[in-house]
């Protein structure tokens, strides 16, 4: 079967090409590009990527405007049907604003834009996005964000931890995130949002290839399904 992955582009997205190319390198199949103003997604998608960047100039709140754009209604419906949805950085912000993931991403506690490669720990290797890793495995993945400070109330945090929905955690203090959360899954496990950029770490030439297994996991889970 042929893998069908799509990446959404919003006005102000700037990692959409990185994500599309990353997916393409790993899957060997061209990535379908979708514009935010479209109301329908291409049929039979196996993967929807929400890229990093500054959608709508970060107006109002990061990701808030993009979350209300026409295509997101289709993404929400697809996520409800179980289609894997993966949001990176601004994409993570969009997914929380759209209500597909709990919590919110606030201004970094240090107020500065953080742009460096950070160590992460894989907290759950049972998800369709992380099955190619070992639980506890340490990764080096770049971050580049101003609003990555994950916030949720204590009850939500406890539930995320208890249900194994914290996918990745920072090993160092990066942005003030509650419990150093770097990436979380939705209840069904088919939506992942994370601030670090695995699409920027898929080949050794990029400084790290630790992000590659995330895409391999998603593609393999589909082929095995």
């Amino acid at each position, binding site marked *: 079967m042929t893998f069908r992955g799509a990446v959404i582009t919003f006005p102000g997205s700037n990692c959409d090409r990185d994500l599309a190319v990353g997916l393409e390198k790993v899957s060997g199949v061209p990535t379908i590009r979708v514009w935010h103003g479209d109301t329908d997604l291409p049929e039979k998608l196996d993967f929807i990527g929400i890229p990093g960047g500054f959608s709508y100039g970060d107006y*109002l*709140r990061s990701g*808030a405007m993009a979350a*209300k754009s026409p295509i997101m209604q289709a993404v929400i419906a697809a996520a409800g049907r179980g289609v894997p949805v993966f949001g990176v950085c601004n994409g993570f912000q969009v997914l*929380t*604003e759209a209500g597909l993931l*709990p*919590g*919110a991403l*606030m*201004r*970094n*506690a*240090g*107020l500065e834009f953080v742009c460096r490669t950070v160590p992460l720990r894989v907290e759950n290797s049972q998800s369709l996005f992380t099955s190619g890793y070992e639980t506890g495995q340490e990764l080096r993945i770049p971050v580049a964000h101003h609003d990555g*400070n994950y*916030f*949720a*109330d204590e009850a939500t945090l406890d539930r995320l931890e208890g249900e194994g929905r914290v996918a990745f955690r920072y090993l160092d203090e990066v942005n*003030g995130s509650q419990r150093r959360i770097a990436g979380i899954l939705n209840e069904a496990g088919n939506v992942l949002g994370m601030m670090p950029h695995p699409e920027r770490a898929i080949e050794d030439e990029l400084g790290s290839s630790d992000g590659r297994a995330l895409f391999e996991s998603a593609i393999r889970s589909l082929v095995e399904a």
Partner: protein
Amino acid sequence: MKVRIAVSLKPGVLDPQGRAIHHALEGLGFSGVGDVRAGRLIELEVDETVTDAALDEMCKKLLANMVIENYRVERIAQ
């Protein structure tokens, strides 16, 4: 009619920007400021068909993020 919507962080949500402003005020020599919380003010020009319920919905759906923010709606008499 003008409607003024004040969006502020919920109590208990850390406000790094407010803290930085507080530091800056202290740096300028202003004393006696206990705490600073930064928010956002949004003004809407609306006609008489816009109900309080509609304004409430606007806040909940877009203008405020209910996970971290509270809002207050105020109609301003012209």
